[in-house]
């Protein structure tokens, strides 16, 4: 409203193209994001609340939530640690092959997830390179939740690296130096000076990685083994319902994933907004 009022009072924007670019953006979001989500709810309209509840709380589906959330949580935490380490290495040190490593970070984004899934499955199967070696010391990766977590970690590591990296680049080295000149040990400087800066980005990146893992399908189904109640992920449950032409059932399960993801992203955004305001001088 306010800009219409502004325009009427005679002042116009200096930057051109607001109407056109905003219009196209809204149209694009509507077509690509809002319309499919609306379609999803349209499908749900065919279900009564009791039916909906019955579908989403069916034993096999609930087991799949557990597997998915558990594996995604493990994958996200592993990525938080190693993603932070990778971002640190990429920003703070100079070494040969740095550019190559930096480019490799985006590979999980670029690679079709099915390709990743098949590769991981052959590598970690009992007869595979890594699998046979790990089996010798009693660790089964393929066809267990460990394999699921591994596939999830693979596809979501760029989220952590790419959110932490720019924040770390932005942080002047003098801040570390100041902490050390004041007598802080490396550990204290990291915990009290560096981490608080990286924390919001790290949480965001980890949250994104977690949400991405919740919905991952292609990379996981090849390595998961897909045993009911054991290694079935929620995305697979949706797929199974679809194969049975049970569109309403598929939508019901999909809506659960959607709500969880949205709630998490929203929570992270609100929390992060508070932190950023403090850094830029607002009232925290």
């Amino acid at each position, binding site marked *: 409203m306010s800009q219409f009022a502004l325009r009427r009072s005679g002042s116009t924007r200096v930057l051109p193209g607001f109407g056109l670019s905003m219009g196209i953006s809204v149209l694009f979001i509507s077509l690509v994001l809002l319309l499919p989500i609306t379609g999803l709810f349209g499908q749900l309209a065919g279900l009564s609340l009791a039916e909906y509840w019955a579908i989403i709380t069916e034993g096999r589906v609930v087991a799949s939530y557990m597997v998915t959330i558990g594996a995604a949580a493990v994958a996200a935490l592993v990525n938080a640690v190693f993603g932070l380490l990778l971002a640190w290495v990429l920003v703070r040190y100079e070494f040969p092959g740095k550019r190559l490593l930096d480019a490799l970070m985006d590979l999980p984004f670029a690679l079709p997830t099915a390709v990743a899934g098949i590769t991981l499955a052959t590598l970690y199967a009992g007869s595979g390179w890594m699998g046979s070696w790990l089996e010798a010391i009693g660790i089964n990766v393929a066809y267990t939740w460990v394999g699921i977590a591994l596939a999830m970690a693979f596809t979501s590591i760029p989220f952590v690296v790419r959110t932490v990296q720019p924040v770390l680049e932005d942080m002047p080295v003098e*801040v570390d130096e100041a902490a050390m000149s004041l007598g802080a040990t490396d550990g204290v400087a990291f915990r009290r000076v560096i981490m608080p800066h990286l924390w919001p980005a790290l949480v965001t990146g980890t949250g994104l990685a977690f949400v991405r893992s919740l919905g991952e399908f292609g990379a996981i189904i090849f390595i998961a083994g897909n045993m009911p109640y054991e290694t079935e992920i929620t995305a697979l449950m949706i797929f199974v319902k679809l194969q049975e032409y049970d569109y309403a059932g598929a939508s019901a399960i999909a809506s659960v994933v959607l709500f969880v993801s949205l709630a998490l992203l929203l929570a992270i955004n609100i929390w992060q907004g508070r932190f950023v305001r403090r850094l830029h001088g607002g009232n925290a």
Partner: protein
Amino acid sequence: MSIRLDNIAKHFGNTQALEPISLDINEGELVGLLGPSGSGKTTLLRIIAGLENADRTAQPGKILFGERDVTHVHVRDRRIGFVFQNYALFRHMSVYDNVAFGLTVLSRKHRPSSGEIRARVYRLLEMVKLESFANRYPAQLSGGQQQRVSLARALAVEPEVLLLDEPFGALDAKVRQELRRWLRHLHDELNFTSVFVTHDQEEALELSDRVVVMSNGRIEQIDTPDALYRSPANRFVFEFLGDVNHLEGKVNNAVLTCGDAHLHVDLPDGHEELLLRPHEVRLTQAPTAESHLPVTITAISPVGAEVRVELEADWLAQPWLATVRHTDFEHLELQRGQRLYAHPRHWRRFPESVSKAPEQRHVA
């Protein structure tokens, strides 16, 4: 705590940032490292702090704080305070927490009680006149206030040596002036040894007990501001410390000629270049027997205690600058475009060989 640097050198890749340097700084002294960018002054300061390591050559350098050899001591154990040009405050901590940081990271054995920390932080905040800002965040403060917080933070650990890297570089002129005076006052009161880096000759001359003039990784001269200004060791120091007018020409029979200008000088025949400060130029309506230097006024700026007059002439490669007192300015009725004669009151020459002391002459 006195500081002694012995044979300290540093190179980055193929560039020699510091030639081997030796320097003694007395206890309680306030020393300015002055030089253009790339002269090695910041590198030297960072080596004193321990943020940079000196080269390990055949004759390894040594850094002593008093009797203590700190050459291989880590920055966190050197007991220095370091103030950064861009303040380097911890942005996620309040002003209070920033200042308290150095005390709270002490090992449990050495850490003061929380009540004592609180008292000490407030005493420091009072000293930097920011006690009412304790709960603010750095982003809510002006540049001058942030730099004061950064000073209080460095002083909280009671360092024996305070090192400042272009501490006032990013501030506007008025705040800079104020902070300069305040730092001088603080230094005299608390009696620590301070070294600061600056590229501003006025700042160095005003603030320091002694100034170390550097260029190209070498120390050009170490002296008190007064001695430095009056008897610069070489041409670089003379030119760096203020505006300089050049007069270049051939000397024949004790007369230096340059185009249609000539000046009586007591020098042997040959090519000569004379240097003089703006305040050493006198302007008159007529030439004298000693000097005939016709000039034209191209700009006048009556700012400050003196009037700055820019002079040009065919025989000058670069315009001259002269400063005239306001009374003389009114007396001479100076105007732009006016033709006058310049008379050097005093000039210097720096013969090419660096070892020779500069010559100074007075002209009648």
